[in-house]
């Protein structure tokens, strides 16, 4: 019975990862499609490839943070991990239905915390780990914003006297391939590792791995394959893209926003900090938009990010706690 439950929760975790790729594909391909550098299908294949190969570039520190850095590994059980995951998924569905802002990454952390607290009280939460994640929820979009703004101003200053603006435009269209690839790499690294973290927590909970164990290769490959598959199947369907929703981006702005957001994701992934990749690219796009003029930014979308900061972790934690209590009553 435990084996069945184990594989069921693994399947749910991979489905969560798939939906993440499906939903977030637009973040990395919006600008290359909008500027017609690549056709939509070519763009999603490009993004999915880099989502997948991220496993070879980055380690698994983010996965370790999710598995052992948020809640005490001693309280982990299949029930806790399952409730955490269901809490995150239910919160995402609920907020999508109500039209409220959310973040899958924050929801996952909130879910794990809520389920652990429901089982063993507040002492089961690793405060230092939660504090690290909490502050970087705010820092990551702000770093993306400041970096993208600065980069855009510097690049504009360099190219504004170019005698052949068409040639400059063409150069940035090509550079967009690199920046989109870099962002997809960062997205794959940070978001796929969150699912790896959930599966690692499950392995620890069932005694299949120790607290300090490395993430098994099958977990790494399946998590990256799920997110890449989600990107591949989801990207082309998403018409309303991040690039046009927040501010209208030109190739140069797209390169600055994507490369800035990618730099943030590389940094946090190397340090083992899970962040919202959507919020990071949103911050970077706002940075580029505000370098042109503040009114170029559609502040309604940016405001939703701030609301997601406030709502997601406590909301997902509450749903996960409720789920855990229901599971406990049933079993």
């Amino acid at each position, binding site marked *: 019975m435990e084996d069945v439950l184990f594989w069921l929760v693994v399947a749910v975790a991979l489905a969560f990862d798939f939906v993440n790729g499906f939903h977030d594909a637009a973040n990395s391909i919006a600008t290359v499609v909008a500027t017609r550098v690549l056709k939509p299908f070519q763009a999603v294949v490009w993004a999915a490839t880099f989502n997948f190969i991220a496993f070879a570039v980055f380690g698994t520190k983010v996965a370790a943070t999710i598995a052992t850095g948020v809640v005490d590994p001693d309280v982990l059980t299949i029930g806790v991990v399952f409730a955490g995951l269901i809490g995150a998924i239910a919160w995402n569905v609920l907020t999508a239905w109500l039209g409220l802002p959310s973040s899958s990454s924050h929801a996952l952390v909130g879910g794990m915390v809520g389920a652990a607290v429901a089982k063993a009280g507040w002492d089961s939460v690793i405060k*230092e780990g939660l504090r690290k994640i909490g502050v970087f929820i*705010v*820092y990551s979009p702000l770093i993306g914003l400041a970096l993208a703004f600065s980069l855009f101003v510097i690049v504009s200053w360099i190219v504004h006297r170019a005698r052949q603006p068409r040639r400059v435009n063409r150069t940035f269209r090509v550079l967009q391939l690199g920046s989109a690839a870099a962002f997809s790499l960062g997205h794959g690294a940070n978001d796929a590792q969150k699912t790896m973290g959930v599966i690692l927590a499950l392995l620890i909970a069932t005694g299949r791995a120790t607290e300090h164990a490395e993430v098994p290769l099958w977990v790494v490959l399946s998590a990256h394959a799920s997110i890449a598959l989600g990107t591949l199947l989801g990207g082309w369907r998403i018409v309303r893209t991040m690039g046009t929703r927040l501010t209208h981006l030109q190739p140069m702005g797209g390169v600055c926003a994507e490369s800035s957001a990618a730099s943030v994701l590389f940094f946090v992934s190397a340090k083992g900090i899970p962040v919202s990749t959507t919020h990071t690219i949103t911050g970077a796009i706002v940075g580029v938009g505000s370098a042109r003029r*503040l009114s170029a930014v559609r502040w309604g979308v940016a405001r939703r990010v701030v609301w997601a900061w406030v709502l997601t972790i406590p909301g997902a934690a509450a749903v996960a706690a409720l789920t855990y209590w229901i599971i406990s009553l049933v079993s």
Partner: protein
Amino acid sequence: MDRRALFFFGAALLCLALVPLTPDTYRYVGVVMLIWLTVLGLLSHLDYRSRLR
């Protein structure tokens, strides 16, 4: 005052509030962001003033 400068100063204030909450290992991130956003705010304000002249 320039709205963009106010925006950067607001973001810098947010970082100032976060610095004491940040774990010691990553406190430098908050400090760097505080300085960076303040400088961007100042430059934005100077840019705004130069455009008014």
